[in-house]
């Protein structure tokens, strides 16, 4: 019987490794770029990581259940367009337009959920489909040309100004992060996500409402993507069809970097936050270090591989990994 070697797991624990990486990044860029450590720049990093951060938060419970959602970046684009359209062309006041946009996001998430739970299609395929569908819809609505601008200043405040010394959207982000943390770590829902991620059949035999829980995580993700769309619009000052292109991959990278297992069951919201921070600081810091953009992509990849091998270290220290064998052919969902 393998006994958990506590100190080994803790020292090599994923969050610790990541935190160390983050601190190292900070010190390095601070020594290279003179303006990197300034308050303004910190705010910049925060501002630019909120939207991807929201998507990463939404993805954490999904990946915990052993699923994936590739459609979130596209959904962000679609929601931005819906929001702009409702405000400019349907003459709705901004709060109502925002409310409707959140509804559209949740509905889009429900579509993913429906296909996954009722038709029992693999999440990867379903969301690959809606990935194209949502982006296509956004482009169809705008015919690829139209953008929405001239939002009132009070709305742009949300994306560009400060509340209590922090970028306004950062406060919203913190609230959402806290909500996700509680959901995943302190409620029975979070417990079921893990159970489903480890063994969907086992969870069903235990009488857990597997389909309802899976539906919940995809709907929450849709809702969160809509929120990210509104914040994006406020930050950039315009809503356009290509908003959020590629964000889903950054978000998935952040979640996995944060220690959530792509096979489900294992992971944490705080890990995801660290993952988002590590990526955001890296891409911002490279600008200050006068490195070309392409380097950021390369280093993010390296970081991912390094962090993951770093947490494999305690297993190597403890001898052979003694994982329970899984049947290779089973596990369809």
């Amino acid at each position, binding site marked *: *019987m393998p*006994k958990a070697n506590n100190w080994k797991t803790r020292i090599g624990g994923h969050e610790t490794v990541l935190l160390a990486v983050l601190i190292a990044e900070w010190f390095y860029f601070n020594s290279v770029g003179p303006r990197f450590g300034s308050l303004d720049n910190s705010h910049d990093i925060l501002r630019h990581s909120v939207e991807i951060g929201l998507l990463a938060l939404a993805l954490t419970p999904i990946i915990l259940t052993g699923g994936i959602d590739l459609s979130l970046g596209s959904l962000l684009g679609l929601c931005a367009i819906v929001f702009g359209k409702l405000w400019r062309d349907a003459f709705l006041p901004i709060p109502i337009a925002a409310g409707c946009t959140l509804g559209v996001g949740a509905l889009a998430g429900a579509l993913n959920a429906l296909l996954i739970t009722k038709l029992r299609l693999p999440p990867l395929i379903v969301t690959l489909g809606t990935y194209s569908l949502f982006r296509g819809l956004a482009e169809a609505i705008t015919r690829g040309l139209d953008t929405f601008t001239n939002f009132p200043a009070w709305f742009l405040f949300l994306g560009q100004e400060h509340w209590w010394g922090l970028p306004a959207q950062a406060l919203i982000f913190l609230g959402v992060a806290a909500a996700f943390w509680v959901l995943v770590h302190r*409620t029975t829902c979070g*417990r079921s996500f893990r159970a489903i991620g480890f063994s969907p059949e086992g969870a069903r*035999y235990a009488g857990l409402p597997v389909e309802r829980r899976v539906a919940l995580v995809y709907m929450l993700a849709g809702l969160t993507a809509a929120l990210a769309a509104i914040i994006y619009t406020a930050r950039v000052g315009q809503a356009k069809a290509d908003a959020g292109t590629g964000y889903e991959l950054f978000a998935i990278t952040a979640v996995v970097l944060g220690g959530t297992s792509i096979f489900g069951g294992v992971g944490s919201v705080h890990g995801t936050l660290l993952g988002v921070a590590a990526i955001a600081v890296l891409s911002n810091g490279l600008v200050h270090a006068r490195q070309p953009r392409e380097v950021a992509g390369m280093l993010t990849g390296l970081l991912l591989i390094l962090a993951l091998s770093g947490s494999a270290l305690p297993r190597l220290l403890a*001898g052979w990994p003694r994982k329970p064998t899984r049947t290779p052919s089973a596990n369809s969902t």
Partner: protein
Amino acid sequence: MADFLLRLSDATKSFGAVRALNGVSFELRAREVHALLGENGAGKSTLIRILTGAHQPDRGHLEIRGQTIRHLSPATAHQLGIACIYQQPTLFPELTVAENLALRLEPVSVTRRVNWRARREHATALLKRVGAVISPDAEIRSLSMPEQQLVEIAGAIGAGARIVIMDEPTASLTSKEQHLLFEVVRELRASGVGVIYISHRLEDIFQLADRVTVLRDGESVGTNQVDDLTEAELIRMMVGREVSQFYPPGEGQPGNPVLSVRRLGCAVTGVREVTLEVRAGEIVGLAGLVGAGRTELARAIFGLTPADSGEIFLQARRVTMRSPQEAVALGIAYVPEDRRRHGVILEMSVAHNLTMAIHRRLFPRAWLRLKAEERLAENFIQQLAIRTDGPSAPVSSLSGGNQQKVSLGRWLATKPKLLILDEPTQGVDVGAKSEIHRIIRELARKGMAVLMISSDLPEVLGMSDRIAVMRAGTIAAILPG
């Protein structure tokens, strides 16, 4: 005088702080069936892993066919003619019998062309040697468990195995299939092979084995001729104390019907026209062959594969069961047969597994109360005598019998009116088995209705107040216990 195929002396192996094997010696002669016996966690698996090269002992001396082996890797074990047949066959389900055998026996090469005819003929010959009536073109997944085991044995013979290790080969066999397997084992022995035979079933050992070595807590209790031992002595060697072989008796009159199903059917799983009643305080045994529809009936009652005809009454109230959640809410509990896949979630902790079916009651408004959960888990660990490092240990670190207790405990926590048990003691050692029997009887005494599916005939006869026999998806007879 005797030629030893294998001789392991003074082997010790530790995992972290746990000493799994402590100074164990074991020897195997040609032409013998040597049984290896012990409770779950006694060190049998570790010993097997050392003999197959999966683990290296910390200390000890290994000699195979007179040759001292310093480092046994799985590859050298294979070369030396050691083959292991596991309880769960390790074949590729999507490939045919011939392909599976070829994977083990033919050399791997990119440039060599496959001679399909030779491959089939070779497979046919091997299957014939083990007396199996199986087509070499059959896909493995279309074969029954015993047929798959025969394919494994054929593979071992084809590889020229001189030492065959069989790990609980009869755990899921019917008595007829078991006889067939025994014949094959006896033939192996006659041809000069040494067989190491691991089983919980004492009957098997008395029927088949020549000698027996008993392990307890990682140490060897002794090696004896089987003929010199009685069953009681063997059990005492294993458990280290007397275990009553008697089943706890039932008492008193059963109460009102708790479950009553009428002409229940489920087309997809082949259950049809089942009429059955289970009363409060009564244990109804559900006997029959594997595939007779017993598990399928349980799945229909528990809502896993909902029934499409007939009626279910729970305490005289008509109910429909469309999902396990509904069944749980109505007070039905189902301890499934496949505990590793369905009974527990191996990666999660003992506590998380124990509370999984009572989230609603233990955590009102979905808010986790970790202290309360831990207390409850500790309570169950004590009540059911679950051997574990604590509530937060992963269930995968427990032995089979203790995993089964966690699976049972999860459902006892729901305080069910009806408890359905599916092979509750399969693959569980003698000590844990009698404890589980005692617990079940105690629950019935307190008024729970129990429906117990079991292929273990003495268990069905000993435990049941009434026995329902299933055949071809329906109840063939109901007998007094």
